[in-house]
């Protein structure tokens, strides 16, 4: 029953040094049910990161209400885990200490946290890397650590801000599979912000395409590709005809939006 409910959410920023206000988000309404996988796509400036930061509790919305389960969101919390584009790992700590950071903040007993860390390192495919300094890991491995660090806290909702944006194509595909696997195995609610249309289609049971000025949800899709990706290889899914159709549709939609922005400016 830990649904994420977004009710008439809006966000305006003051432009520093001028009386102008920018409407980053306007009248956002949606409900994300427990266990759903949502990807959010849109041209730059459409407010998708702002939306994520509000859900994470880093920003206070200027209007509207947002609840997770029966609790209204009023700041960052353990029940909403974050995964950042660059990992945001603590480079002075080895892998295991990064993963159990949340547990240490909660003062979990040592045996318990050792077992948890081992379990999650296993799941993300980093068994035996516990003592490795994070700065010695590749970009993909660093993102695996970030995932494990987030999951070890057992959050209800996982928020990912372009988590695979800085990875090379091959690693990216592997990580996309990993995210799908984790989604299926843990049954967590996951929300992914991305700027890659293919990724949004693959990692979205639901997909929001957002539009700028003011930031709003332009169109919503329900897609079968995530389910398909659990049984088929992602490359095969991408070959499917309907995949290509939706991809082209969304691409031209975003293309038009960008054109509009350029001509408007």
């Amino acid at each position, binding site marked *: 029953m830990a649904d994420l409910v977004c009710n008439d959410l809006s966000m305006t920023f003051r432009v520093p040094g001028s009386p102008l206000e920018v409407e980053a988000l306007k009248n956002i309404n949606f409900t994300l049910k427990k266990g759903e996988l949502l990807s959010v796509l849109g041209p730059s400036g459409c407010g998708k990161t702002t939306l994520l930061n509000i859900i994470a509790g880093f920003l206070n919305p200027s209007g509207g209400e947002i609840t997770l389960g029966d609790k209204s969101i009023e700041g960052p*919390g353990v029940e909403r885990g974050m995964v*950042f584009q660059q990992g*945001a790992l*603590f480079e002075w700590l080895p892998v295991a200490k990064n993963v159990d950071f949340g547990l240490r*903040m909660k003062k979990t007993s040592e045996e318990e946290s050792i077992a948890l860390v081992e379990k999650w390192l296993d799941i993300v495919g980093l068994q035996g890397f516990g003592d490795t300094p994070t700065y010695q890991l590749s970009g993909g491995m660093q993102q695996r650590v970030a995932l494990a*660090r987030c999951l070890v806290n057992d959050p209800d909702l996982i928020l990912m801000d372009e988590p695979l944006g800085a990875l090379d194509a091959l690693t990216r595909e592997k990580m996309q599979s990993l995210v799908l696997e984790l989604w299926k195995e843990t049954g967590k609610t996951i929300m992914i912000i991305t700027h890659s249309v293919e990724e949004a289609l693959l990692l979205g049971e639901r997909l929001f395409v957002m539009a700028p000025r003011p930031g709003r949800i332009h169109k919503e899709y329900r897609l079968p590709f995530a389910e398909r990706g659990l049984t088929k290889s992602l490359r095969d899914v991408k070959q499917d005809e309907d995949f290509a159709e939706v991809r082209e549709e969304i691409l031209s939609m975003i293309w038009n939006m960008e054109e509009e922005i350029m001509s408007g400016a």
Partner: protein
Amino acid sequence: MLDWISDNRAVIAAFLILLFGASFFIAIYIGLKQSALRAKDEVFGDPDRTKGGWYWALCGVSALMLVWFYYSWGMARAFFPTAANEFCQVAKVEEALSPITATLPIGSRYYKSTTLVTRNGAQLDDLQAGMPVAVFTASEMNTLNVIMDDTRELIAIFSNPEYQNEVSISEFEMVAAELDGLSERLRSGYDGYVPTAEALEQANWGTSKVEIPLLPETARGMMLDEVATEAAGISKQFLKLRNQSDEADELIAATRVKIDTIKAVNKSGSFAEDVLAERTAYVKAVERIFKRIDDGTILPAESLVGVNLAVVNLYDALDEAKGGLRTVEALFMPGDGIVKSRTQCTEQGPGRWLPKPTDVVGTFWTLGNPNLEAGGGYKGTVLLWWKWLPIASIVDFFIPDSLIDMLPGSYGSHDQDGQFVPNYKDNLLAFAQGEVYLGAIPMFDGHIWDSMFRVIVAMALGILVGVPLGIYMGVSRFFKSFFDPLIELYRPVPPLAWAPLILTIFGIQDDGKIFLLFMVAFAIMVISARTGASGTQLSKIRASHSLGASNGQILRYVILPNALPEILTGIRIAIGVCWGTLVAAEMLAGTTGVGFIENVARTVSDYELIWVTILIMGVLGLLFDLVMRYLISRLIPWRGKG
């Protein structure tokens, strides 16, 4: 053993010089061979280029040591140990001749007489032009003009060889002949001269307080010494010689009468006070010039030609007598050579201000001797040793007496029997003042430790106070803005500008210096910790928030480690700056410390000691930096990789 080493440092230096020379050339040989080996696969930008090679380091060190040995006259002393003694004898001759050469254009441009003639002539012109007409009568002015004209006439008479009488001429000829006699002696060689036993017992060059042994140690030196003694006699005789002329004597007598007449008028006449003062001053000035001329120190240039030639001849003979020494001087003793002053011979130029490497080691050895009775240490403090430190004195330092004052109750007073029984507060006060013996712990002692102690304590305080404040300034608007003006206002002031004030307030002992250094360390630590803390990536802080960390936990577990590289770099910089400031502060005031040693050495021109302290400071500074580099590589391996 040590005495033997000290006495034979020239031999040891010779050995070392040969060693350095050999390693210099061997290193070049190896280096060139290595370069040839690599020439094939080395391309422009080969990363191995920057690694250098031990052989080039050896080559550089050897070259440096050889240059040091050369410029400090270490080579001269190593290979020509008696050269300085012989040069000292030469210097004795030159010193003995100096009264004669001073009157001749040797070592200067003009005859002394020429200088006298031009200077006095100019002064007479000035005096005559500035005669105060108001205070003299016309006839008096006339007399004064005659006196001055006669003085000019006197200069002319003394300058003219025709007026010099026979006696005077023959006297100067005699001096020239005696000088020629000395030249002949110098040219006839030094066979048969034997140095005295006393001379042979003198300490070697540079091994005792007497820099260069004074008595001649060689046959050549004996001869030179003898010539010097005789030359001194001739100089004495020469100094008594005056220009004598009958014409001049007449004119002098007549002029003296005129001056006396005017002086008599001054004395007897009833002049107003200011008029009298002006008259007396003017007459005195006229008489002064006259008296400078009348003693016959002006000589015709022609009369000195003979003496001049004789002295030039003597110098030539001296040069010939030096023989091989001339080469030694030209090649191995850069600078002004050896000069004799009244009581001793001294090295001039780099030989004076650049101590020889072996002497530096010797000075360091003496300084480092922990036995003060045996002449070790400096000004009653050892260089670096250990001592028993009473724990009570640490207690005294850390517990302020005022803390005891604040306790309830009052201190005891004497009773009716004239006895004083201390109560608990008195006992606590004695404890706080370090009067209760609590045992002792071994502790470092000495000038070096005192300097290091000041830096270490100041750094510790600076880190303890500066890092937390800096971190808060990095994350909080209030701390940043509240403290920023204070710190940025005092920080740009050079620490030494604070020194006079701080030393006055806190005293010249450790307290004042530690506070001064604390000010330096504090500012640097605050700024580095602030930079480190404010540079924490937002995503890291957000991630920590999402992982359930509280603000305090983020400060402790995220922002502090994130600032650690900057903090450690700050410590490294602060130690360097503190070290520099400390030495300067110790030079300003104090009784111990490395800077203190250098300051005292400066006032007594002890160049060896100055160099030793400079070397100590350099090595200690390097040591501090090496420790910090090691700590940085151990504590923050992730630096630059995050």
